[in-house]
């Protein structure tokens, strides 16, 4: 490959192009053109055409950024951009849209839309009629988060410890434990209603033959909560297990061999050898399970329909936004919820970082 001196470019110090210079890496010009063309397109053409024009403009800006990053060796930006672009179009943009909606009075079954500022937030948090239900659902959600996540972490961890060793038939037994996670929640949730059913269910059949009288699990709040937590923990403990197990098997064997020679106690062996290897993955499991636990709705819908004071915030949200069409009020509730999740996850990440620095 021969490069003539005239076109060759010094690899490091490359000046940015001037604003109006037409060149593939001039991202400033690309943004300018993109904004102008998109604005004209949206104003003049029907939505079905202008959507694609806006998309093409976004692609052009992105391409300019890519060329710019490549020529100036910003590999980080180059690698991250495609993923961020997809996330932006499909997730972040709709999220911002619904954030915007939360400041308006809007119902999806009506045409009118009116700016009301923080009214929706004040309403869902303090209104005499709406707020108590919201708070109650939030408190229930907090309870479910604590119960399900702690159960999953403990059960998942114990299961992972069982499978950490190499033993005969391990791979056949492991897949049995992983299966609950693969079930569709539609099917497993519906089948749990059967297991818990007072007349036909297995649980009641067993309980009735042990004790006198009719056993109905969903009769009390404690029973209903236990039923939901059990089903959720049963489905998702394997998730925690798999992450922990991936960490456990990555511990180099020679460390254990050394520990065995030094006669280190099992307790110390765990904390000083095993734990550092699984800390990151435990954190990840905790993070994702907490986030998912906040969104618990499907099992509640299937098992109790929110009865016996088991309404969670996500189910409440579905009712408000979908069944009652109160779109902007639902958006406000979900941003209150998002705020809580953000505080909690930041707390997790902060603690994890501090531990990392100590270690």
């Amino acid at each position: 490959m021969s490069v003539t001196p005239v076109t060759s470019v010094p690899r490091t110090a490359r000046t940015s192009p001037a604003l109006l210079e037409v060149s593939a890496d001039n991202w400033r010009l690309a943004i300018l053109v993109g904004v102008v063309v998109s604005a004209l397109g949206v104003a003049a053409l029907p939505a079905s055409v202008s959507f694609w024009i806006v998309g093409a403009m976004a692609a052009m800006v992105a391409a300019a950024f890519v060329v710019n990053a490549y020529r100036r060796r910003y590999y980080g930006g180059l690698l991250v951009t495609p993923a961020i672009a997809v996330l932006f179009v499909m997730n972040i943009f709709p999220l911002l849209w619904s954030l915007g909606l939360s400041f308006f009075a809007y119902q999806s079954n009506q045409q009118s839309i009116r700016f009301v500022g923080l009214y929706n937030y004040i309403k869902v948090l303090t209104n005499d009629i709406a707020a108590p239900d919201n708070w109650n659902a939030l408190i229930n959600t907090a309870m479910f988060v604590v119960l399900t996540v702690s159960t999953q972490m403990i059960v998942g961890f114990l299961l992972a410890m069982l499978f950490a060793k190499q033993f005969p038939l391990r791979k056949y037994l492991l897949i049995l434990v992983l299966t609950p996670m693969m079930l569709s929640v539609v099917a497993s949730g519906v089948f749990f209603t059967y297991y818990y059913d007072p007349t036909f269910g297995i649980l009641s059949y067993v309980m009735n033959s042990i004790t006198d009288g009719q056993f109905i699990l969903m009769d009390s709040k404690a029973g209903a909560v236990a039923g939901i937590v059990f089903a959720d923990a049963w489905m998702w403990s394997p998730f925690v297990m798999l992450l922990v197990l991936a960490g456990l098997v990555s511990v180099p064997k020679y460390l254990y061999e050394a520990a065995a020679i030094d006669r280190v106690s099992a307790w110390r062996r765990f904390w000083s050898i095993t734990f550092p290897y699984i800390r990151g993955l435990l954190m990840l499991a905790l993070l994702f399970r907490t986030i998912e636990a906040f969104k618990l709705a499907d099992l509640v819908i299937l098992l109790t329909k929110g009865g016996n004071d088991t309404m969670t915030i996500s189910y409440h949200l579905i009712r408000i936004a979908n069944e009652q069409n109160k779109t902007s009020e639902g958006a406000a509730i979900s941003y209150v919820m998002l705020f809580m999740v953000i505080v909690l996850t930041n707390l997790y990440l902060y603690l994890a970082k501090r531990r990392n620095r100590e270690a």
Partner: protein
Amino acid sequence: MESGTSIWERMGFRKSSGVAEAGWGHTLVVAGVSFIYFLPVLFIIFTAIKPQALALSVPPTLSPTSLFGLIPDQFVFTPTLENFGSVFSRVMTAGGQPEPTGFDRFFFNSIVIASVSVLLALVLGTLAAYGFSRYPLKGNDTYLFIILTTRMLPAIVVIIPVILMFRAAGLSGSYLGIIMLYTAFNLAFTIWMMKSFFDELSPDVEDAARIDGSSEIKVFLKICLPQVIAGLAATFVFGLILTWNEFLFALLLTGPDTRTVPVAMNQAVSSGGRGTDWTLLAAIETLFLIPVFLVTFFLQEHLLRGVTFGTVRK
């Protein structure tokens, strides 16, 4: 890989027991735990081969065989394969002819949509995770946190803007729309997971390769990627499981041609106002479980091999 393991050794008949190896005693304990854990699934599978009339019998029928007289007769049922047939074609109206239910199409949709979107997320997510791990940007943690935030809100909040967006673009009911949505849905987890695997790698090997004149692309493809195959497998399995069973987006954004199995399953078992059709639900779920079960089973080896296998120990 250990070379020359005999078939006996691979089946677990190992003479030498190393530090982290256990024998058949351990297998027995784990088998007991695993079996109990698996019971609710087993019941669903057995329901799929039950005659429809026995689905809600009291006492519940539990097993297709009496296991040589171990299980009392009242709990035993005669297995049938009828239910699997009625997944694909059954009598819809009283006294009518069996009609095709379109489930072959729904299974095809589920496979295409889930596998394409998970693979796409894996490619984009792994590149991004490598970028976040090796070439930290200004405000790296902030970007990562924003990515995580996309998973925090319940789907119902994003769904209304997404529906409007898809309608404007003519994407609702198309494969492209739902695949892109699921790709985004998987990206957050993929990026976080793969970043934690890349972070675990020792940079020494990479630096050595760079000094020897390897390009950045070569370092990524030849040195980093092979070390995180376990991570790729685990991420793929998780993504597949989550996407495979996703319900809400699929319910609202797929059309008759692109409908996935969870949505169709929900409609099939709750239509007609006759209550849940238990044997049909179990048969659909059992069939629906098979692909993802097999993928997990065959990727398991990678899943468990560990991140630092075969590389320089830290």
